[in-house]
Every structure is written in structure tokens, then in C-alpha cells.
């Protein structure tokens, strides 16, 4: 009995479950076809090995896909009764659930996120998103946009790599429920689960052309969002690219929704339940390796509670297990790409240079793949880059405050406005803070909760438009 700590035994999920294939093709007009773009190789960020070769779209392919979507809209989907559209979406929801294990393992392989998260969050929420929106398809007249709101037409959608299947579902489900057809571009580094979703659409007998999926890099995304025959563009990704898309679409009259970056403040008052707050802070910044636009990346803690909270926080973070995404015991998986790892590393170096105090979890890291140990900066001031810029990695910046007014002023001192957190036992304070924080989502005594019934989206430079709930339908209706 020389140790009171029980070591975890490895508990890896089998990668065979992913049904990984050597090559994947794009999905246009109901068929898997070879793209005429330069094929890409998608890698497992936890090991660096190539997972599969994926064909990508050229500009001509984008045009073909938009034409297919237009035909499907004009001839089939746009005039199909909502009750019939609904049944396709219900089918897709069910089939995602049926293939949940396969999708979860494939997602973890391609993205690097822990299997615990892909299994418990990404995949079930993706299925739930289709199920929720299926129900809306024949009830749109009750949504508050007039008695018979019409679809827009063809939607071009570009999604990021942090929640590949879930973001595809957030985009496709409401678009289809409202009667639109879509051309979706998954992220360059994580195309696989979207292509399995395409297979599900095929198996669900979704009419050809209603959903088209075009893998590729940013140039394919740019060609798509600028295609003249789109009626709607939806983008989730960086604020920089979002601004470019808004600029490009100026004067086109095309409806646009943007879900962009964030730098959320997670505000902890001195009366907060500290142990719960620690769990919430950890979930807020280390969920999905911090690759979350609404991550609680700025911890604002009451000065009087800061020392105690930081001690507890460091102790808790030390227990986080960083490593094999397929291991069911893993808390923090792999950084999605070498490029993202380089960005995190350079921002952390900026934190060092600007004089913040860095603490890094002593956890062991795998010797291959892209990994970054959970990191906490204290003594951060508002002018530092690590307090202003979105790091999109497992790096927390800690600032302190003395009064609620100061907390609000610091929390709102950002061009972003996607999410915020509040931790306090005082109900009146929660409600007052929730109304003063300029952010689209406020989590009180919790963090990073998502549900298809709850609208999600930002204020200010975090974008416009909502996803989920009744409010989310507006993005895909001609209202």
C-alpha cells in the first residue's frame, strides 16, 4: 500500500467501430462522386497518421452542387408538404442515433476530441437537432413569422472543425425543416462524419440534391458562399472570415447568418459554490480542448476568492487526463491540427512576454500527435493578447474584480459577445448579471450547455442570427 491513488487502466474504444474507409468522396445530387479538386488527406491529430483520402470540390463542382440543390428545391423539396419533409428529418435523427457509436469513434479519430464527449455530446445532440427541427417542418405557421412563412431557396453553409457532425446538423436540420435545400462544406481537417451523414441522407431516401456535401479548404468555402445562385449563406467559424463573407455578400441581398468567435467571461463571485464553480470553469475551458467558440476563456474571479479558487482549480486541472481521444478515461484530447497547435503556442508565448503568470498542468503528454497541456494564466490584465484574442485552446486567462460593476465592465470589454458565465448562490445577482452581460448565451452556475430548443448565437462581433429554438427558424425563412 504505497499509494492511495488508483491508476486508470487504459479503456480504449475500438477504432474498428468507425468503419473507416481508405477513401471518401463528395456527395452531390444524391450520389457519391469524385470531386475534381485536389484530394486531401485527413489525419488523426492524436497520432499524425493519415486516416483517409478525401476528394474535394473544384469551382465547377460547387456549381454542379448548387445547381443540384436548386433543382431539388424547385422540383421537390420546396413544394413538399411540411409533414412529409418532417418524416425525412425524423428518419435522419433516428439513423444518426442508430449509428451513434460509429459516428462517435469516427469523430474522435478525425477531430481528436475525447470519445466521452463525441459519444455523450456531439452525436446525441446532432440526432436531437434533427428530431427537434423535424417537428417544426409542418408547424412553421405557429412560429411567429406569419401564417405561412416561405423558405428562402438554396443555402450555402460552411462549418468549422470543432464539432464537425454537430455543426453540420445545426446547419442542415433547420434549413431542411423550413423547406430549403443545402450545399454544405465541412472543414478541411474534419470532413469524415459529414460524409457519413451524407450516407445517412442517402439511406433515408432523402430526395437527391436536397443535401450536398463538398469537402475542401477555404477556397471551396469562398467559392460556395460567393456563388450567385444562393439565397442564403450560413457560416460558423472565425470572426475574421465572417467579416470577409459579410463584405463579399454586400449588395447581393442574400440572407446571411454568422456564428463567429468569442472570448467569454466566466464570472465567479465570492459567494459562489466554489467546488461546483471549479467543475464549471474546467468544463468551460477544457471541454473539447478549448476548441469552442463559446469557451469560458476569461475567468473573472472576485479578488477575495481568487487565491482559494485558483488553488482548487489547479488541483482539479492536475487530475485531467490528456491523451488518446479513443480512451474512455481521457478528459482532454488532441489539438485538431498542427496549425492550431502553433496558434495556441504563439498566443501562450505572448502571454509570457506580456508578463502574465503561467501555470501548466504537470500531466504527461503523449509523445506523438498534437497535444497541449491545460494552462492557466493568472495576473492577466485586460490589455494583454491572451485576454483579448480568441485562443481556441486549453488556455485560461484569470482576471480579478472587486465589485459587480467592475465585473460587468470587464466582462463586456470585448468586441465579442457570444457567451458568459455567472457563479453565485444569490438568485437576484444571477438575474441582474444575466441581464447586464452583453452576450447571446449566459450560463448561470453551469457552462457549455446546448440544446436544440435553446437559441444560440452572438452579440456584436460574435455574429448575428440564432441557431436552435423558435428564434433559429428566422435564419431559414423569407421573413
Amino acid at each position, binding site marked *: 500500500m504505497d499509494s492511495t491513488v488508483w491508476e486508470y487502466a487504459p479503456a480504449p474504444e475500438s477504432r474498428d467501430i468507425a468503419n473507416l474507409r481508405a477513401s471518401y468522396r463528395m456527395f452531390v445530387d444524391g450520389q457519391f462522386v469524385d470531386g475534381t479538386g485536389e484530394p486531401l488527406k485527413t489525419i488523426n491529430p492524436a497520432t499524425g497518421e493519415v486516416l483517409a483520402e478525401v476528394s474535394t470540390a473544384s469551382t465547377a463542382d460547387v456549381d454542379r452542387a448548387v445547381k443540384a440543390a436548386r433543382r431539388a428545391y424547385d422540383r421537390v423539396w420546396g413544394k413538399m408538404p411540411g409533414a412529409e419533409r418532417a418524416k425525412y428529418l425524423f428518419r435522419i435523427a433516428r439513423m444518426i442515433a442508430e449509428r451513434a457509436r460509429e459516428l462517435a469513434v469516427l469523430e474522435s479519430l478525425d477531430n481528436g476530441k475525447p470519445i466521452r464527449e463525441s459519444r455523450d455530446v456531439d452525436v446525441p445532440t446532432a440526432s436531437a437537432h434533427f428530431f427537434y427541427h423535424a417537428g417544426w417542418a409542418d408547424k412553421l405557421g405557429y412560429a411567429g413569422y406569419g401564417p405561412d412563412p416561405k423558405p428562402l431557396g438554396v443555402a450555402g453553409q460552411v462549418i468549422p472543425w470543432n464539432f464537425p457532425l454537430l455543426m453540420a446538423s445545426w446547419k442542415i436540420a433547420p434549413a431542411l425543416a423550413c423547406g430549403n435545400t443545402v450545399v454544405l462544406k465541412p472543414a478541411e481537417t474534419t470532413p469524415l462524419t459529414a460524409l457519413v451523414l451524407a450516407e445517412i441522407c442517402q439511406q433515408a431516401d432523402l430526395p437527391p440534391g436536397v443535401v450536398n456535401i463538398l469537402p475542401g479548404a477555404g477556397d471551396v468555402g469562398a467559392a460556395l458562399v460567393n456563388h450567385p445562385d444562393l439565397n442564403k449563406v450560413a457560416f460558423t467559424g472565425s470572426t475574421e472570415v465572417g467579416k470577409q463573407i459579410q463584405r463579399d455578400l454586400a449588395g447581393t441581398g442574400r440572407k446571411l447568418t454568422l456564428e463567429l468567435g468569442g472570448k467569454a467571461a466566466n464570472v465567479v463571485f465570492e459567494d459562489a459554490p466554489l467546488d461546483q464553480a471549479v467543475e464549471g470553469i474546467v468544463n468551460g475551458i477544457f471541454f473539447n480542448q478549448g476548441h469552442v467558440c463559446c469557451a469560458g476563456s476569461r475567468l473573472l474571479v472576485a479578488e477575495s476568492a481568487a487565491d482559494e479558487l485558483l488553488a482548487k482549480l489547479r488541483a482539479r486541472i492536475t487530475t485531467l487526463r490528456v491523451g488518446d481521444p479513443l480512451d474512455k478515461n481521457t478528459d482532454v484530447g488532441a489539438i485538431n491540427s498542427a496549425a492550431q497547435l502553433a496558434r495556441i503556442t504563439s498566443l501562450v508565448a505572448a502571454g509570457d512576454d506580456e508578463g502574465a503568470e503561467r501555470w501548466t498542468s504537470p500531466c504527461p503528454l503523449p509523445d506523438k500527435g498534437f497535444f497541449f497541456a491545460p494552462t492557466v494564466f493568472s495576473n492577466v490584465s485586460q490589455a494583454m493578447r491572451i485576454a483579448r484574442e480568441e485562443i481556441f485552446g486549453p488556455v485560461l486567462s484569470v482576471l480579478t474584480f472587486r465589485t459587480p460593476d467592475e465585473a460587468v465592465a470587464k466582462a463586456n470589454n470585448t468586441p465579442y459577445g457570444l457567451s458568459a458565465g455567472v457563479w453565485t448562490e444569490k438568485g437576484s445577482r444571477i438575474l441582474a448579471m444575466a441581464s447586464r452581460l452583453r452576450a447571446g448565451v449566459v450560463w448561470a452556475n453551469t457552462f457549455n450547455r446546448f440544446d436544440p430548443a435553446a*437559441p444560440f448565437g452572438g452579440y456584436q462581433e460574435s455574429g448575428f442570427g440564432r441557431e436552435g429554438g423558435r428564434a433559429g427558424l428566422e435564419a431559414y425563412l423569407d*421573413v
Partner: protein
Amino acid sequence: MSDTRVTVAKTYKLYIGGAFPRSESGRSYPVSDSRGAFLANAAQASRKDARDAVVAARKAFGGWSGATAYNRGQVLYRVAEMLEGRREQFAVEVAASEGVAPRRAQSLVDAAIDRWVWYAGWTDKLAAVLGAANPVAGPYFSFSMPEPTGVVVVLAPQTSSLLGLVSVVAPVLAGGNTCVVVSGQSRPLPAITLSEVLATSDVPGGVVNMLTGRTAELAPWLAAHGDVNAIDLGGAPASQLVDLERAAAGTVKRVLRAPATEPDWLRVPDIARLRAFLETKTVWHPMGV
């Protein structure tokens, strides 16, 4: 009184932060009636005036957005009351500005008054109509509510000098936003007289800031301004529309695009203009004992 009495002519100035300053630039421009006869000189606002107006609007945002919806409704209703009291004056000004017959001018003014009443009644219904209790799949109470977008720039219609102006400003205020308005360029006088109404209607200073001058000169600065959250391009010159929308993208502003032609403002509005300048905020809290 002898009928040779000389009338006291009004000096038309800007309305910024609750005060009526001249343009800091010292510039003014002549305003004529529809037949070309001189009516008055209006202040020609500058870039600096526009920036001052944004500062005033930002300063007023906390108070106005934080006021109760009931209070905002009462204030907007008060505007209708004040306007009703100056009904004849506005009819004369609208007739002169727009060149319409007196009866037509009167009906436009009446519609403008009624529009304030319509929007006054919306302030405390918006959350019920646009908000929601979200039935999430977990032990959480989740609700969503509309909140004002922030500081809104309104490029007011160029044709309809009062009814059009009221139709675009009232929904911005009803949602709890503050605004910087650039009045119609060649028909600015009813806008300034409306500012006098606002100033005496318990609308806090800075909630509405009225600029007169050249829309094409002011709009680019306002579209690119970092402390503006949204812009209504309704009254923008067609030649600038693309550039203004591009400039607005620099800070991801909400853009209400201009319709191809100015709408018929006498039509009963819907809530689209309210929705255009509202955000949805979703709040979550765990449930448990």
C-alpha cells in the same frame, strides 16, 4: 397686432445628447419647399457631429435599455401626445417639405401619431412574443428573451419626411435601442421639429440624436464606426449601398438593407423592424434541490 408683423423665424439645429447645437463645422445649407422657395437654413452636420452623436447614443443606452418596458411604452405614448398637440404645425411643415395637399399632409401626420401609439404598445409585449421558455432535455431552466442590439444608425427615408422617419425610428426605440438618425437630406425640417417633440416627451437626452446634412457625407463614417451596432440603410444613396454594407462588415454590424423603392409608409407595419434590432439572449440555470 398689426398684420405687418414680422414672424419670428426658427433656426433649425441638430439634436445631440438632448441639446440643440449648431454643427461644430459651422456649416449650414438652404432648404427649399417642393417648388424651390426658400424655407430655412438647416445645419449641415459633420463627421465630428456624427461621432458626438454616437457618443451620446452610447451614453444613453444603459438607461434606456435598462428602463422597464412599461416605462418605455409610456414615454413613446407621450411622444404621440406631444405630436398630437402640434398636429397643425407638422401638417404645414410636411405640406411644405413634400409638396402634398393640406389634407394629405394632415393624414400623413395623423398616421405618424398613430404609429407612435402602435409601437408604444409593443414595448411590453416583445418579450412575450419573441421570448421563450426553452424546454431543454435536462435539469435546467432555460429561457430566451429579446434584448436591444445597442446603438443603431438610421439613415432616414429621403421622401417621407415625417411618417417615414417615425416609422423607422419608433421601432428602434421600442426595442430599447438608442439611435443616431440622419434625416432626409432635402426635407429635414420636420425631423428637427420632431426632435423638439422628443425633447419634451420624457425621451432621455441621447436616446435619439438627429443629424441633418448630406447623407452621403455622413453615412460612411457611421457605417464604419466601431461603437455602432447596427445600421438601417433605408435612406442611403443607391450608389453607396454596397460600400456602406461592406464598411458595416468591419465590426459585424446588423444591416437592415434598403428596399428597392421607398415603401408605402401608410401600410400597417409588422414586427420586422422591431426584430431587426433585437438580439436573443438565452439564459440557463440548473434545477435541483
